[in-house]
């Protein structure tokens, strides 16, 4: 593969007695998007803040594009762009003024480049308004423009989809993919939106309680074998713990449905009117509402039904005038893999 744009070696950070990041080793390579996954309090933001110079590490080294952060601070940071937590700017200045200020600090005086990134993030209409008037999504877009205006070789984004609408998220994903795969930028993205990570990242680094647990290619992580392998890494009782933990913590991941009970397979049924469809299935006795294993989304139903009843399900739906747009068995998602891996964590 290509060279490492970011190398963390033995990175450690303590807040008082609590170790927040514990001997973390991590590489981000040119041309890849690395997802940085972990539950709240796992140390993701702390790590990012150390890389970007907010926090002083207690031990370990940070090397950015070949420059040691502590020994060659300004040169190291000159090849980084980033957003930490929410993108913060001077609210009394306009988006463009913020952008110009930041660009000048990077030695970029090229107006054409500034206009280019404004267009890239879709902020042409509002860029001359004061940031005070921006919504979170607009700040995210402007923040992204800031982060890339100086053509960084390493891009670090902490929860960049926060506050973006679905179209904005898709747009961001496209921009990041192009930057990484076409321009060779190394990108580190942390996020709670796991489904997004699945769509966006090439590799995923999983961090829990300050320790790096695994680094995998995204497609590897989706396979059962890999999960078993990781389960073995984590210890024998990780799977049992996962079941308990999952119920209590789904609130943290409110964009995705809660995982269904594992015994009966779950089916995803895409229909135009999921509510009426569910009622029809219920009337046919194929599905009992008391079971609690029903999830209804605007365009789809997620039902736990025995496989042998599926033919009857299709017939019932067609008889009731529902066009079956898609029917497939729900795969165990990255979500579940993630929860299993970090099952024994607490939010501190």
């Amino acid at each position, binding site marked *: 593969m290509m060279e490492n744009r970011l190398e963390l070696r033995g990175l450690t950070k303590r807040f008082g007695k609590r170790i927040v990041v514990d001997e973390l080793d991590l590489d981000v390579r040119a041309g890849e998007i690395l997802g940085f996954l972990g539950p709240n309090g796992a140390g993701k933001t702390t790590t990012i*803040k150390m890389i*970007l*110079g*907010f*926090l*002083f590490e207690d031990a370990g080294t940070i090397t950015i594009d070949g420059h040691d952060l502590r020994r060659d*601070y*300004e*040169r*190291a*940071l*000159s090849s*980084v*762009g*980033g957003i*930490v*937590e*929410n*993108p*913060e*700017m*001077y*609210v*009394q*200045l306009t988006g463009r003024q*913020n952008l110009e*200020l*930041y660009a*000048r*600090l*990077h*030695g970029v005086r090229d107006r054409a480049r500034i206009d280019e990134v404004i267009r890239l993030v879709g902020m042409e209409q509002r860029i001359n308004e004061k940031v005070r008037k921006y919504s979170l999504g607009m700040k995210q877009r402007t923040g992204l423009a*800031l*982060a890339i205006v100086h053509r960084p070789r390493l891009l670090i984004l902490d929860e960049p989809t926060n506050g973006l609408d679905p179209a904005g998220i898709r747009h961001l994903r496209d921009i990041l993919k192009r930057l990484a795969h076409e321009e060779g930028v190394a990108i580190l993205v942390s996020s709670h939106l796991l489904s997004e990570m699945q769509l966006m990242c090439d590799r995923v680094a999983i961090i829990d309680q300050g320790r790096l647990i695994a680094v995998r290619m995204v497609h590897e992580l989706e396979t059962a074998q890999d999960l078993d392998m990781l389960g073995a890494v984590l210890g024998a009782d990780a799977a049992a713990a996962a079941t308990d933990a999952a119920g209590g913590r789904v609130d943290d991941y409110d964009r995705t449905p809660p995982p269904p009970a594992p015994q009966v397979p779950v089916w995803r049924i895409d229909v135009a009117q999921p509510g009426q469809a569910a009622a029809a299935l219920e009337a046919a006795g194929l599905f009992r509402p008391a079971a609690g294993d029903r999830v209804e989304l605007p365009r789809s139903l997620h039902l736990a039904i025995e496989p042998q009843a599926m033919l009857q399900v299709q017939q019932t739906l067609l008889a009731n005038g529902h066009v079956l747009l898609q029917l497939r068995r729900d795969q165990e998602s990255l979500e579940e893999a993630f929860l299993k891996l970090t099952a024994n964590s607490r939010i501190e």
Partner: protein
Amino acid sequence: MHKLRTLYRNELYKIFRTRLMLIVVAALLIFPLLQQLGRRQGGGDDLHHADGSWNHEALIAMYDERISETLNFARSDVEDPLYQALEVAVYENTLASYRELAGRRPEIAARNFALDLVERISRLTVWLDPEAAGVDLPAHLPATELIARQQEIIPGIYEDPTRLPSEREAAEQQLAQVEAALADGSHLPYAELMLSILGEASAFGPESAGFYAGRRACYAHLAKRADVSVDALYDPYYIDNTASLLQDISDCERSLADGIDYTRRLPRALSPQRESDIKDQLAIHRYNLDHDLISSSYDQNHGESAYLSSWMLVLFILAVYISIVAASLISSEIESGSIKLLIIAPVKRWRIYAAKYLALITTIVTLSLFSWAWLQLLQLVIHGTQNMPVTVAARNGSAYLLPFVLRNLLDTACFALKLLFYGSFAMMMSGLLRRTAVSVGIAVGVAFLDFIATFVSYNIGWQYWFQVMPFINLDLGNHFYPTLLYRSMSFLGMPPNAAYIPLWFAVLYIVGFLAIFIATGLQALTKRDI
């Protein structure tokens, strides 16, 4: 370097393009303007018409009030019942005759000396015949015993009671002379007359002896001069200021002759440093006296006093404003998160700090110069060139005149230094606490305390420990000339005792504290997590 410049410009932009700055600039423009316009209208003491001539009605009202105050004092604060009855009678009598005089001859009644005469005659009347003056005395107390009691209460009030009738006649004669002198329009006979009256005035008792001695010296001085204007002579401020100037000269001369410092509250042995200070002071006093640079009540409205009052206002506005700005320079960025923009950029944190500090200095210098220019303009336009106040400074025992504009520039520099001190302290607190509300509160509080401490330091200046407290020794200019602060204290009736610590110490002190403030603030920003 371009990074520092970019950061610096950003800081300046943030400071200058705010509503707060707009408010401060408006305040700096409007308040001194209103103040000076008010003074031009004869505001303040109301003793002058707009054209500078005396406002007799106001003068009469002023004296009327003074006598009433004295009467109230006699009623409430004099403990001995007999003495109280006498004093009340004296001042009731004075008030009545004074009002009569004011009705008959306002231009005389308004004048200082006329009041003295009226009071004197009244006192004589009462003492000579208390019952006729309506004093409600205990019935069994004969007049001779009354006088004996008076002498007990005020020793030496009259050496020889038999002289009293002639005293009264003399006083009545003097009043006639005064009126004649006034009709004549000449002030020299008047001054001589006052001298002769006051020559006897020490008989009034020890508590007034000092006052009358000062007055006497003053009139003795004025009687010798032909160039003193008539108005000045009738001007209570001018007379009082001349009297205190003469007193200062006498104190300095005595100090140098005896080797004891009499110019402070508590006399003490004269150090070589202090000796040269007193020589300089003496030179300044003599220069003021010889060139008649003595503040009159006209100056109260149009000259130095007017100028100083505006400067005190400006100092107050700017001290509070600079404290607020500096105390939020770092903390507000951390609170709002906007510092992230700078931290993520490839700039070391000391550059961020340096840019902020430079912007603070620029703000202080700009606003100080702005205030300076505006106040010069106001003085020129509202009060005219002839009212530009001057200051006399001295070096090695010889006095020289500091021109108005130059002196005010020096004042501005001293003033800016004080603001820089406040600002550096506030910025340190901002970096240490990282909470704007708290650091602004502390910084403004400290600036306010410093105002009070400055007053205290001028008054207990001989206490060395007080001199080494932060903020106290900032008036470096005092080592070279009487600064703004020094002159203000004089005007407020607190004769300054500053500049008795060596110059090298003051400089070291200021540099030292500034270094501590800057270094602590820098450490707080660069060595801590954000």
